[in-house]
């Protein structure tokens, strides 16, 4: 016995924790409900809070608790509890406490409107070990409720934030660039920086996915809210060119074209998602039937060790994808993925023009493409990205 340091602290994020084999599942995302007490313009999920049919189909407490136990048994360290609005579930505290008693860290995604003094105290006494992530839109009641379409939500969210702050529960706030909130980003950042309990700068959603349940009317509404590529570039540059420099860096690091393998966005065993009805998915947004595993007819272990690895072998067949996306060197920028393709087209591998356009606008801003160039037709794309990364 010679070691002088008996314990090893590992920073949040778990990088470097595993000296030998990584666990079979690092993170589990759980969508406790699709229901929400807000009806945000851009939401790709929400059903009304009072949707009795959805509520009746949601898994009960015990099923979630059993699943959490199975996840812990697979080595899972982090569970994300999201929705819809997860605090709509009357059993949220029971599910949360069960996760924490299993030694899971909890990422809670909420709009904060339903935070109660009791919940804030619970999060203080049994901390989630991850900052609570709070979506909050707009700096005024008018702009916020023009997004949420829920009267009273502005005041309720501010009250919830106050309760978390009073109890010393770390949180981060997340905004969105939408017609009612455009032009408020600087004010939002300044406000967030002054919040007691705020654990970091706010993130902004600027590029929106269409409705992941493929509701055509909802998707049309979301499409009408989208910022174009040039607007995204302008927003990203509002504090300088740091973001643009990072885009070049991403492209250089990503290592060139993605090829025909579709599932490249997450490392093996990184995570899995489960919807409110016990259907496991590769990620929260991907509901293509080929990418869904019914946990009621199987097990989390089988899903993670057999179903997801098979899914990761899926290759593109769409000719347009093979002609464009598979050969494109903007892999580090473009959001193209099976979930986006599913929301836009109902397939896994159809190119999404919207994200393609945004990536091209970013690449032009980063000096990786000239105006009018198509990234998939550029023969020295990977070299360009490497040169950009090396600063030459």
């Amino acid at each position, binding site marked *: 016995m010679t070691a002088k340091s008996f314990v090893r*602290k*590992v920073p949040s994020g778990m990088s470097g924790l595993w000296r030998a084999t990584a666990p079979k599942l690092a993170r589990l995302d759980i969508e406790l409900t699709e229901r929400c007490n807000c009806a945000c313009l851009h939401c790709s999920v929400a059903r009304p809070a009072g949707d009795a049919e959805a509520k009746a189909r949601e898994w009960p407490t015990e099923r979630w608790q059993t699943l959490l136990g199975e996840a812990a048994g697979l080595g899972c360290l982090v569970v994300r509890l999201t929705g819809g609005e997860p605090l709509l579930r009357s059993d949220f505290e029971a599910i949360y406490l069960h996760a924490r008693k299993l030694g899971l860290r909890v990422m809670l995604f909420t709009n904060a409107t339903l935070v109660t003094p009791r919940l804030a105290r619970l999060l203080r006494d*049994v901390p989630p070990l991850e900052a609570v992530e709070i979506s909050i839109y707009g700096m005024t009641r008018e702009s916020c409720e023009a997004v949420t379409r829920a009267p009273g939500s502005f005041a309720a969210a501010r009250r919830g934030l106050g309760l978390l702050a009073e109890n010393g529960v770390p949180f981060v706030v997340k905004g969105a660039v939408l017609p009612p909130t455009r032009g408020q980003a600087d004010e939002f950042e300044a406000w967030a920086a002054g919040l007691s309990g705020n654990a970091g700068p706010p993130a902004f959603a600027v590029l929106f996915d269409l409705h992941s349940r493929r509701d055509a009317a909802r998707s049309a509404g979301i499409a009408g809210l989208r910022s174009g590529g040039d607007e995204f570039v302008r927003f990203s540059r509002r504090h300088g060119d740091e973001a643009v420099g990072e885009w070049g860096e991403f492209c250089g690091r990503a290592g060139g074209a993605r090829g025909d393998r579709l599932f490249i966005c997450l490392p093996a065993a990184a995570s899995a998602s489960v919807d409110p009805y016990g259907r496991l998915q590769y990620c929260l947004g991907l509901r293509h039937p080929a990418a869904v595993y019914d946990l009621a007819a199987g097990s989390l272990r089988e899903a993670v060790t057999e179903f997801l690895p098979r899914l990761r072998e899926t290759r593109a067949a769409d000719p347009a994808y093979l002609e464009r996306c598979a050969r494109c060197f903007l892999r580090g920028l473009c959001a193209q993925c099976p979930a986006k393709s599913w929301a836009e087209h109902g397939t896994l591998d159809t190119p999404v023009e919207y994200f393609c356009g945004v990536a091209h606008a970013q690449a032009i801003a980063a000096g990786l493409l000239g105006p009018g160039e198509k990234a998939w037709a550029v023969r020295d794309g990977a070299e360009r990205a490497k040169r950009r990364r090396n600063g030459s």
Partner: protein
Amino acid sequence: MTGKIELGRAYRPSDDVVVREIEGEIVIVPLTSGIGDLEDELLTLNETGRAIWARLDGSRPLAAVVAELESEYEDAEGEVRVDVVGFVQELYDRRMIVEKS
């Protein structure tokens, strides 16, 4: 929590932490607030720590833990005791173990 640990006393894991074994690693996860400075970190044990931890079940005084380990490890006289006391003191200060009442 402060205080000096004693060889004559027994210690056990605190109810304020969750101890997990994942792929051969012992991982200690805080459950309640105020466990050392670990609210943004996880903690794992090295080989020495694991050997000691496995015996901190509250069933025997620390002196018995030292004696067991001395019979298993060929260390210079007194070295095992120093290691055990150092380890247990560290975890005790972090509120990860408590004295068996």
